[in-house]
Structure formats: structure tokens, C-alpha cells
């Protein structure tokens, strides 16, 4: 004697369920093999389900009118011969289950950095040489790390690869820091700290916890302005609104490519220093909602024209509120152009977890010493803030000097 479980089969090539229309047997009935037990209604037809065995009906598991799902137990029949104990689930239970996993557990990602760009062969060589590609600046298209980059990194970690010249031309960009709301006009009373202001406040709290050091200087901007004028002259309409900002950002990006430690983040709790492969420069923009910092990705790869267009798009999006979260994430360094507001010197605050920020003051004629004589020159004040936990004064100064050199002689910007 054995109990045979009869389960609802899929009788119509992919049916999921059936309605119980009529029981054709009762508990205790003696049934023959293939004697109809129950009439069911499916999406396709009405059908009688015959008993798989001869025996006595031990139990019925659905009421007339119920909907049974394929695989559900319908009837138990006590059979005289001890053949199979479960019928009609063969198809459902025939699924194979995969072998127990023997593969090593998936490693937990240690950081959320984006993969650097490099060909598989370069990756393999880097692995073999024990070099983390994230520490190498790629000079190929889109920042790709080339074999030459890898070779250079292998020989001299700080080498500054010489590569083909890049195009330089730029288009108009509006003043990214401009704001039109009346300043300092918050009405008397208590105001909830919300939105961008709250986010800014929190960010500043975090940033203020960073031990800052600052370096300041002034740049003779004569050549820079002359160069910009010449480009506008050459391009006419196309460069009508070209500001100095793309030049400034380009110079910073070049300096970051040279001094990669400046393009890093620090996490003292995890006790790691993450040096980033990509140079993504945040541009601080004052908006009605507060300070926003859209991010210019792979800034070291952009020519002036492209960069100016991108700066224009980002600052417009920041001001009209259409900027996406993606356009404000993944920054690795920040440029604050407070000079557009008229300022001269300031102490810019780092945006944690970045380790550096550069602020530019307004370009104005100011006394400047040239060949021992004080003359009036358009000067560009520069202030660099660094995280002193990672950056010391020597690196800060070297980095800032490099920016100054590039902006003093902008022809150097045209060459890598």
C-alpha cells in the first residue's frame, strides 16, 4: 500500500492554473487507473484528469470553484501497488539545480572607483609588474593608459609623458560663479536649514575638520589675456564669449596630472589614500539655492573649445536647477573662481574627501615688479588650499608654481 499524491499537471503547453469544475469521485471511492477524477477548466479548454493508478481516494484538496496552481496537490489515492508516490509534478520538479558553488566567493569591492581605461594587454602587464593602473595618468584618447604610459610609470613614477599636441580653441562660457539674488537679504527670523544650504553646511562642517594649509600668490596675466584676445580674434563669432576660466581649469588639470597626489582623497578611518586615475574638477558655482559644484570630467583630456562648452552647460544647469546628481559627483579636485565676484585673496575650503582646492581672484591691474621696476600689470591672484594630513608645504608650493608657470606663459598650455 502506498499513498499516491496527484498534483495538477500543466495540460496545455504552458498553463499556470486551472479551476476545479467538478469532482467526479468522493473520498473512499475505489477508482480504476485512468478513471476520471476531476473536471478542470483551463484557459484553453475543459478537461477531465484521469487517475494515474488504481486505488482508493484518500483525500481531496480543493473545493469546486477553487483555482489550483500547476503543481498543487489535488488528490491522494491509496494504491494497492507501491509504485511512484508523486505523480504529475515531474515536469515542474525536473528542473536541475546547479551544483553547490565551488567557485571562490566574489571578492567584495574595496572601493567604488570607476575602472581606468586600458587595453587588456596593458592591464595584464600592469598586473604582472605589480602596478595599480589607477596610479597612472593615461595620455591616450579619453585618458586611456597606453603602453608608453605604463612604461614611463615603470621607469619613473613622476615622468611627464610627451605626446602629440592637442587642439586649443574654445567657445563662450558664462561666468560660472555669478548669482543674481540679493545677497545677505535673508529676512529676520528663524529659517529651517534645508536643501542646498543644509547640504552645504554639512559639507563645510566636514571640510572644516580638515587641517588646511594655504599658499597664495599673484600671476602676471598679461600673456594670458593677450592669448585669449588673439584666439577670439582668430575665431571671431565662435569664441565671442570666451572667458579665462577654461584656461585656468586647463592649467590646474595639467598640474594635477603632474602632481597626482594632489588628485587624491584620504580616509583616516580606513587608513587609505586613494589616488585617482581620472582628473575630475569641480567648479564652485554660487546659485540661488546655495553653492553647487558641477564636475568637469576628465578635465585633462578636454581641449579649450570642448571645455568651454562643457563649463557653459554645467553652470547653466546648476543655475537653472536642471543639473543632475551625476554631473555633481565623482569630483577629485575643486576650482573656485571667486574672482568673478570681484575678490582678490581668499582661503578656499577643501571639499572632503578631496585633498586640494584652488581659488582664483579677479584679474585687475595691480602693481607688479617687472625687471626691478614696479609697473601696473593685470594680475591674477591665486590661493591653494591643501589637506595637511596628506600634503605638505613643499608639494603645495610646487603644484601652485606649476599652475602659475602655465598661466604666465599660456603657450605652454598648448603643449603636453
Amino acid at each position: 500500500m502506498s499513498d499516491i499524491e496527484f498534483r495538477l499537471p500543466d495540460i496545455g503547453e504552458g498553463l499556470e492554473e486551472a479551476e476545479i469544475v467538478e469532482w467526479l469521485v468522493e473520498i473512499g471511492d475505489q477508482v480504476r487507473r485512468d478513471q476520471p477524477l476531476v473536471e478542470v477548466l483551463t484557459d484553453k479548454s475543459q478537461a477531465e484528469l484521469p487517475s494515474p493508478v488504481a486505488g482508493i481516494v484518500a483525500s481531496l484538496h480543493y473545493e469546486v470553484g477553487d483555482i489550483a496552481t500547476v503543481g498543487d496537490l489535488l488528490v491522494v489515492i491509496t494504491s494497492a501497488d507501491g509504485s511512484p508516490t508523486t505523480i504529475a509534478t515531474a515536469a515542474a520538479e525536473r528542473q536541475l539545480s546547479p551544483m553547490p558553488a565551488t567557485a571562490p566567493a566574489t571578492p567584495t569591492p574595496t572601493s567604488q572607483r570607476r575602472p581606468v581605461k586600458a587595453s587588456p594587454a596593458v592591464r595584464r602587464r600592469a598586473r604582472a609588474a605589480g602596478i595599480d593602473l589607477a596610479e597612472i595618468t593615461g595620455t591616450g584618447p579619453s585618458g586611456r593608459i597606453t603602453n608608453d604610459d605604463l612604461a614611463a610609470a615603470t621607469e619613473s613614477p613622476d615622468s611627464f609623458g610627451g605626446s602629440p599636441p592637442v587642439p586649443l580653441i574654445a567657445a563662450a562660457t558664462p561666468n560660472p560663479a555669478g548669482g543674481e539674488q540679493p545677497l545677505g537679504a535673508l529676512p529676520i527670523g528663524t529659517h529651517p536649514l534645508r536643501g542646498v544650504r543644509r547640504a552645504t553646511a554639512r559639507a563645510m562642517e566636514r571640510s572644516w575638520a580638515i587641517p588646511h594649509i594655504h599658499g597664495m600668490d599673484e600671476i602676471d596675466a598679461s600673456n594670458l589675456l593677450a592669448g585669449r584676445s588673439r584666439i577670439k580674434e582668430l575665431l571671431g563669432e565662435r569664441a565671442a564669449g570666451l572667458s579665462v576660466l577654461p584656461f585656468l581649469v586647463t592649467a590646474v588639470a595639467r598640474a594635477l596630472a603632474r602632481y597626482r597626489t594632489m588628485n587624491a582623497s584620504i580616509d583616516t578611518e580606513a587608513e587609505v589614500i586613494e589616488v585617482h586615475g581620472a582628473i575630475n574638477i569641480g567648479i564652485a558655482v554660487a546659485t540661488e539655492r546655495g553653492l553647487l559644484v558641477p564636475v568637469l570630467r576628465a578635465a585633462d583630456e578636454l581641449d579649450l573649445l570642448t571645455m568651454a562648452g562643457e563649463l557653459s552647460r554645467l553652470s547653466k544647469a546648476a543655475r537653472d536647477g536642471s543639473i543632475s546628481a551625476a554631473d555633481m559627483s565623482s569630483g577629485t579636485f575643486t576650482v573656485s573662481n571667486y574672482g568673478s565676484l570681484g575678490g582678490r585673496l581668499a582661503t578656499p575650503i577643501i571639499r572632503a574627501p578631496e585633498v586640494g582646492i584652488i581659488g582664483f581672484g579677479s584679474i585687475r591691474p595691480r602693481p607688479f615688479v617687472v625687471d626691478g621696476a614696479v609697473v601696473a600689470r593685470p594680475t591674477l591672484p591665486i590661493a591653494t588650499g591643501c589637506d595637511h594630513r596628506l600634503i605638505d608645504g613643499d608639494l603645495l608650493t610646487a603644484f601652485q608654481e606649476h599652475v602659475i608657470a602655465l598661466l604666465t606663459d599660456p603657450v605652454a598650455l598648448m603643449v603636453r
Partner: protein
Amino acid sequence: MAPGSTAPTSTHDLSDDQLRQLLREMIGARVFSTRAFNLQRQGRAGTNAPVDGNEAIIVGASHALDPTTDWVLPQYRELVGLQRFGDEVIDRYALYITGHPGGGHLPEPIRVWPPQISLAAQIPHAVGLAWGLQLQDTEGVVLVFFGDGASSEGDFYEAGNFAGVLAAPVIFLCVNNGWAISTPTHRQTSAASFADKAAAFGFPGIQVDGTDVLAVHEAVSAARHRALAGDGPTLIEAVTYRLAPHTTADDPTRYQPDHEVAEWRDRDPIESMRRLLTSRKLWNDDDEQEANDTADERMELAVQRAESAPTPADGFFDHVYATPTERMIRQRAAFRAHYGQEDGQ
């Protein structure tokens, strides 16, 4: 079976035992088929196509052939009626409906091809096979089953045309059971009959009562003699009615008129033959019981064998090429690494 006992006999010379055997096999066909239908309703078999209404055509034709020299290419309803070609056919049928790959293997020396799901695709195969027999000067004919619906396929016309050109020893047996799933004959063709289509091929086409096993036997015998004499193909349209759903997945009450079904039930081919033999005192209730029991036991045995047949889960890698390609070997190794060497049952 000894070759001597398998050679076809002309219809008028059929012995009493042979007549009784025809009925036994017709009953057997329906018992096997009904059991297959129930197995599907019990979740133990996949979609299958009942034979009800076609028994006289299949059994009558198979007895007009010589299983030691002649070949049968079925569509997909015929295996249950081809016991004459080998007892193991029924085991293969049980494997076939329960989804075992071995169901496609009709072993030597059974001259029956596996069921063909692609309608009419077997007709060019039959012509090729008959052509091959002809080229090798091998005696034998090829009989190919197909339905009224399949006759609308291009393969039927291409193969019929070429068979006529070759004068190949092939018999086209069109089982006209009135329905191609839900499409009735008059939506299938505007020809007066399916047999008429032979005119385009340049060989004879005849229509025969498909509910009369002796009429089918006689028609196929004549066609066979023609073929063996080198006179080429014959198209036989055997007219019957589909007395069951198209397949287990079909509901014919949606389209078959009740009165039509009732009329044809009165002409049930098994019932007709039973009446004939009973009237000749060749059949009684004991014979009926015995025929049913024998078939039921045979099918039960076939089902038990099928359900206990080992089914390697990676069996689909077998018999794709004579020697598996390196890629298949890799794929199979990956399959086994992932799933293990389980049984697919």
C-alpha cells in the same frame, strides 16, 4: 516475425486470422493513444496527438506493405498503428511522448522513421528514399503519411512533382480527416478532392474510404504493385474524420459541429470492422476483451520502461555530429561542471 509471415497479401486473400489481426491492431492503436492522452492529463507525458479515426488507414496500409522491404515515413499520429513493423515501435512511442530523446530512434530493422512535426517535410525524404532504392536496384516501396493540411505545403507539391519525374516507388498517403486543427477541408483546398492533385504530378490519384480498413488495404496494395512494377508513385486520399482533439492541447468543441462528430462516430473505423467480423462470427466479446487487455498491458509495459529509462540531463549533446566538435565538448564539460551528471528525469 519471420519474413514469410510478413509479406502482404491481396485483400481478397486475407485469412480469417489476418482479418482478426487487423482489428486487434486497430484496437491496440486506440488503446495506446488513449493511454498517451491520459498520461498527458496526469502530467506524465508531453503534448501528443490522438489517433482516433485514423486507425483503419494506418493498420490497413501497414498490412499492405512488407516490413522487410518497405519503408514508412509517418507524420505524427501513426506510430501507434505500426506494430506490424516491429513490437518495439510501441516502446519508442512511449519514450517519444514522455519526452525522451530515444523516442526518435526506431531501431534496426524497423523500417519506420521517427514522427515528423514539420508538416509535409517528410514527403521529400520519402521521395529521396524511394529514389535511393531505385538507384540501388533494391526492391521495396516507401509509403509516406501526411494530412489534408500538410497537402497545402510546398514540400508536397515539390516532392510529388519530382517523384513523378523519377517514377520513384513511393506511395503518398494523404489522411484526410477533415480538419487541420480547426481548419476544415473546404478552407484547405478548392480542389474537388486531394486525390485530384495527382493529375498535376502525372501519376494516379485515388480516393478511398479511410474508415474501411479493407478498402485502404486494397488501395495501398495496388499502389505498391504499381511502384514495384516500376510504374511510379500513387497518391491515395483516405477519407475519415478526426474523432478526438487535434492534440492534448486542443479543444475541438470550439469548432467541430456536434452533429458532424456524431455522424462520423457511427462510422468509427474500429466499430465498422468489429461489426463486419462479428457478423462473420470471427469476433466476440472475449476477443474484444483480450484485444483491449493485451494492448493495455503492452502499453503499461512500455510506459514503465519509458518512465524508468535513464535520461542523462546532457543527452542533447549526443547525436548532433558523428564526432562532437571541440566546442560541444567544452560546452558539455561546462554543463557538467555546473549541474553535475544528473539524471534529467
